[in-house]
């Protein structure tokens, strides 16, 4: 029972990080019809910001907001430089553009920083743990869960109460009519990228907090997982992205914890098999978007 509680906490922490990343992908996809595979590089940029802040002795309380801001700025710059010129292009055009952005950034990290993994200085407290009865919970796991919950509350408020957030929901449904309301395409698209950057930045801080290192390909795996989570939840649906992220986190952590030893090497295929199984019964995801296939920009 104690093991189960502990693994559930781990699953919530990992699933929450996937959920934040999947949400970032979903916000941009719902508005532009673009799957941004360079989303992971936003994470890497945050990771390197944390690393350099550590080297320069910047306090962690300052370097975290700096790292998150770096991802937001990078996301907005990415849209302006790489995606605006192909806006309105086919899905394939935008997808290939996002691969190109990801690869260019990876090569830049390798050549300008280092191809090897770099240590990131973290405050002591993150590696400590709390004992609750027989359950031992890492402070970094608690931090991940709290940060995820705060981000989800923030995003919910933003999308449902702020004028720009409501405009983003409107544009995701029907871009042409949103423009008839006087909503500028650049505003909602830049807004979507800024939100996705914010989510990637927070996810990066959580990701690095578990590993204390950063490398040029750091963002690849989590974003691939987030992409799976977004599909599992229902591509383009924000609630679906959150549900899919948590579901994937639970599948991965429980399999790692409870699968018999002799099957452990098949953990990944078994996990993906479960995802495929869910999609067999719910082909459009757990919480499908009602507007998939609607007119984009």
């Amino acid at each position, binding site marked *: 029972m104690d093991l189960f509680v502990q693994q559930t906490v781990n699953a919530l922490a990992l699933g929450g990080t996937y959920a934040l990343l999947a949400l970032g992908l979903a916000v941009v996809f719902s508005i532009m019809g673009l799957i941004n595979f360079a989303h992971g590089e936003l994470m890497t940029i945050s990771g390197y910001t944390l690393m350099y802040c550590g080297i320069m002795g910047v306090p962690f309380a300052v370097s975290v907001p700096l790292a998150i801001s770096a991802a937001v700025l990078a996301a907005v710059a990415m849209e302006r430089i790489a995606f605006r010129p192909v806006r309105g292009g086919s899905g394939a055009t935008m997808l290939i553009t996002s691969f190109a952005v990801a690869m260019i950034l990876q090569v830049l990290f390798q050549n300008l920083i280092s191809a090897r993994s770099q240590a990131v200085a973290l405050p002591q407290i993150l590696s400590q743990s709390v004992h609750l009865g027989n359950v031992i919970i890492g402070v970094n796991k608690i931090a991940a869960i709290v940060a995820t919950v705060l981000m989800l509350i923030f995003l919910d408020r933003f999308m449902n109460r702020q*004028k720009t957030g*409501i*405009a983003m*929901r*409107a544009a995701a*449904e*029907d871009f*042409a*009519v*949103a*423009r*008839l*309301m*006087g*909503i*500028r*395409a650049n505003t909602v698209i830049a807004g979507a990228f800024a939100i996705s950057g914010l989510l990637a930045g927070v996810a990066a801080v959580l990701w690095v907090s578990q590993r204390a290192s950063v490398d040029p390909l750091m963002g690849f795996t989590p974003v691939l997982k987030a992409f799976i989570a977004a599909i599992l939840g229902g591509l383009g649906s924000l609630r679906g992205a959150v549900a899919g992220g948590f579901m994937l986190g639970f599948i991965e952590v429980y399999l790692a914890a409870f699968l018999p030893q002799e099957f452990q090497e098949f953990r990944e295929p078994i996990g993906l098999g479960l995802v495929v199984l869910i999609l067999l019964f719910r082909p459009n995801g757990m919480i499908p978007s*009602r*507007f998939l296939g609607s007119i984009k920009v």
Partner: protein
Amino acid sequence: MTRAPLLSAQGLNVRYGAIQAVRGVDISINEGEIVTFLGANGAGKSSTLNALVGLVPVAEGRVLFDDQDITDFAPERLTPMGLTLAPEGRRVFGGLTVEENLRMGAYAVNDADRRMAAWDMVYDLFPILHERRKQFAGTLSGGQQQMLAIGRALMCGPRLLLLDEPSLGLAPKIVGQIFDLIALLRERDVTLGIVEQNVAMALEVADRGYVMAAGRVVATGTAEELRQTDRLSAAYLGEE
């Protein structure tokens, strides 16, 4: 000296790839008028309206609104100037509440007093929208959605409101309500351009009309004149 029309288009052409939807159309709408656009399906009425508000590009020709050349303006620039369209098929934001839909309608209005006046006017015209304000627009009936689409377009305080097929797909009783409303809008100094397939209703509320066939204007005149001309039925029967 007569005043310049509020909106005019000269030699308007719209193309979708190889297909020419609108061919050299000249139209004008004066302040305070209700002008209707009639014709069979595919006559180019909706394309004309969409081109006026910048939803589809103008291939050739010129559009003037309030003496300003707006030919290449995007829709989001025209709304703050007072020109907007309630599109065909209602196209309310189904995943937004009624209130949020209306709030989006006022997106371009920065003046808080004007916004308040717009809320009051729309809720006054459509008490049902006030009653349903917390409900998702996707759960409204067709008639209520049409009221919301018109209400949403009114939220920006338009000087010229274009309505594309406001009665399409609605029950006869609801159609009557929509046209009563259009008559009410005239009293509120909103100039209207209406594409309509319900010819009798449209000519009843309109001052003037244009009859279109195969992308051209084939007849124009006052509503009274159009009621009597046989070019109208000819346009519908495809003899033009």
